[in-house]
């Protein structure tokens, strides 16, 4: 194992990968701290830039975006009270009051250090759980993989959004979009409607940029245009790292619990940082001796939320690399990055490309140190960045979107795909259909289909999906993930009715 780490080290500790990792981290913090710009969007926009790079260089940049983005959301959350990404919603609850009480520097330092420790705990999980998980998955047949994909899709459908049926529709639309183009098994062209550009199907990247970047930009254009936001004065950004560290290590249980909640939620297919931070905050409040103080600007809340959201990074990458089933939309893009660099994630990855896998582990660690340094000492720059007006930002990023979509295959057709999926994504978000299941569907589509058909070709008996124990386990979990929200819905309704009857 140490040998492999040495290999990973030698991959990352070279000038070019290190610079890219650093730049990726900075880019991640930037998209993280801008409200209305998500990590998913940042990852989708950085991905095309990595085409000309080697796979380890490209992935270093992407890892940086992931780590920086997870931490960057707290900046605007604490200073403005507007979370920069959904991953930092719970940070606002205590971070903003603390900033209002005249200690914005302390709040930011607490959040940044908590992010760091949460991420490092996640990194250890990633490092120690990926190899055995991949090892276990080596025994999976097509039945298990199909059942696993089904579980991943049902859980994301039931978790992301208010309506489970709309989540399911989104996931199905993603699978359908992936079925366009050449049949992966027989090579027969499907649904090209006489268009040459559709012979290969929709390229993953323009679909992604359209759904997550383009549609979000358009959403930012709604309303009368945002007025300039009143920032807390830059004056009091001072902090003392030593006292902040003391505060964090004063609550080791909170830190550990929140980080592990993040890791677990991240590893669960379908749920990511946007859920983990709120859950960890809630748990911290329940475990606290002084729950009433939550929301008034105490360190506990900031630590819980920020360590949880960075914990999801390592948690989410674990199944992505070991099983080829991403944990959420951001890790789905990470998986897309691997595929675009010609690497198929899955149990064989760690055997075929150990240098890459361990390189990613090392990069993930190093990114947290970069994030810590950049965010603690560059905070003033990021605060200034949030003042860039949207009328300059949105058209500029639209240009980036089109160049990014074009650049994968140098096909003009892909810019049309970008436009169509941008429009579709916008309309879907207006219809309150969550977008994350769709992107998981797009990326898991070929895997679902190939394994489904391979299973039936090996043995036409459908019952095998239910008699093979691991396959059955995944299917049972899929069914639970579908039924649980219905049950919860029923219970809250019943509670409401009882309350109304009283």
């Amino acid at each position: 194992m140490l040998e492999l780490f040495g290999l990973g080290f030698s991959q990352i500790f070279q000038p070019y990968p290190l610079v890219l990792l650093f730049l990726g981290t900075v880019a991640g913090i930037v998209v993280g701290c801008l409200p209305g710009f998500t990590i998913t969007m940042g990852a989708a926009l950085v991905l095309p830039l990595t085409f000309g790079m080697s796979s380890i260089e490209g992935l270093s940049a992407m890892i940086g975006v992931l780590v920086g983005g997870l931490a960057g959301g707290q900046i605007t959350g604490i200073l403005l009270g507007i979370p920069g990404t959904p991953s930092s919603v719970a940070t606002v609850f205590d971070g903003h009051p603390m900033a209002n009480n005249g200690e914005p520097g302390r709040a930011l330092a607490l959040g940044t250090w908590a992010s760091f420790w949460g991420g490092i705990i996640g990194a250890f999980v990633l490092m120690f759980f990926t190899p055995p998980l991949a090892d276990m998955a080596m025994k999976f047949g097509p039945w298990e993989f199909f059942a696993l994909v089904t579980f991943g899709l049902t859980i994301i459908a039931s978790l992301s959004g208010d309506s489970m049926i709309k989540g399911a529709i989104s996931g199905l639309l993603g699978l359908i979009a992936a079925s366009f183009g050449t049949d992966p098994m027989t090579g027969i062209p499907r649904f090209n409607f006489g268009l040459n550009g559709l012979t290969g199907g929709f390229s993953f990247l323009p679909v992604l940029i359209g759904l997550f970047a383009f549609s979000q930009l358009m959403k930012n254009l709604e309303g009368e245009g945002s007025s300039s936001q009143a920032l807390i004065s830059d004056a009091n950004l001072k902090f003392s790292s030593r006292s902040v560290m003391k505060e964090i290590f004063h609550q080791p249980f909170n830190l550990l619990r929140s980080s592990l909640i993040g890791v677990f939620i991240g590893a669960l297919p379908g749920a990511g940082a946007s859920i983990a931070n709120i859950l960890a905050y809630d748990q911290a409040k329940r475990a606290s001796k002084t729950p009433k103080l939550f929301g008034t600007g105490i360190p506990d809340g900031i630590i819980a939320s920020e360590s949880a959201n960075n914990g999801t990074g390592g948690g989410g990458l674990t199944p992505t690399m070991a099983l080829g089933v991403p944990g959420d939309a951001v890790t789905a893009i990470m998986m897309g990055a691997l595929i675009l660099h010609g690497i198929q994630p899955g149990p064989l990855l760690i055997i075929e490309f150990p240098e890459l896998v361990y390189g990613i582990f090392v990069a993930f660690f190093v990114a947290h140190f970069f994030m810590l340094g950049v965010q603690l000492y560059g905070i003033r720059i990021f605060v200034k960045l949030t003042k860039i007006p949207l009328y300059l930002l949105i058209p500029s990023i639209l240009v980036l979107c089109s160049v990014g979509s074009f650049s994968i295959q140098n096909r003009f057709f892909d810019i049309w795909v970008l436009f169509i999926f941008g429009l579709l994504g916008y309309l879907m978000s207006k219809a309150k259909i969550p977008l994350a299941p769709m992107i998981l569907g797009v990326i898991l589509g070929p895997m679902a289909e190939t394994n489904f058909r391979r299973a039936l070709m090996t043995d036409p008996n459908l019952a095998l999906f239910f008699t093979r124990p691991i396959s059955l386990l995944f299917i049972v979990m899929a069914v639970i993930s579908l039924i649980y929200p219905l049950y919860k819905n029923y219970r809250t309704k019943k509670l409401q009715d009882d309350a109304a009857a009283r």
Partner: protein
Amino acid sequence: MKQDRILALILLAFSVFMYLEADRLPPAMFGALGADLFPKLLFVLLALAAVTLFVQPTVKLRRKAAQSKRPASGAVARAFDFTYYRNVIIGFVAFLGYVVLMYVVGYVLSSLIFLPVLMWILGPRTKKSTIAILVVTFGLTFGMYFGFAQVLKIFLPSGLLF
């Protein structure tokens, strides 16, 4: 509620259309496992989901009506607020124009037109903003041109003319 029903009908129509389209795919060479199998399964599931979405509001409304013992008032469709969506529509139209223009004259020229026009429409139109627009337009267009094409070796769209 009403919007959901329209959405359900669109999805249903889409799945029926696509199912028929999948049916026209060449038959499988061996067994029943052709290229059409998996997509067909997806369209059936999507149709089922659409039907559920269509029926759901009725069930909920009926339950609510039974609870309150009052006829449920139908969802009143809010009038389409044009000013709220004005910039969104402008954004989509401007981007459409940008793509068409890029197809004809290539990346550099189309960006030099698209960026300032959209920024000017969305921006506050002051002296300061005009300067900012010009700086960003030229900086981004040529910065990308050199950064992408020269350093990162990524191609930019060239048009029919240039």
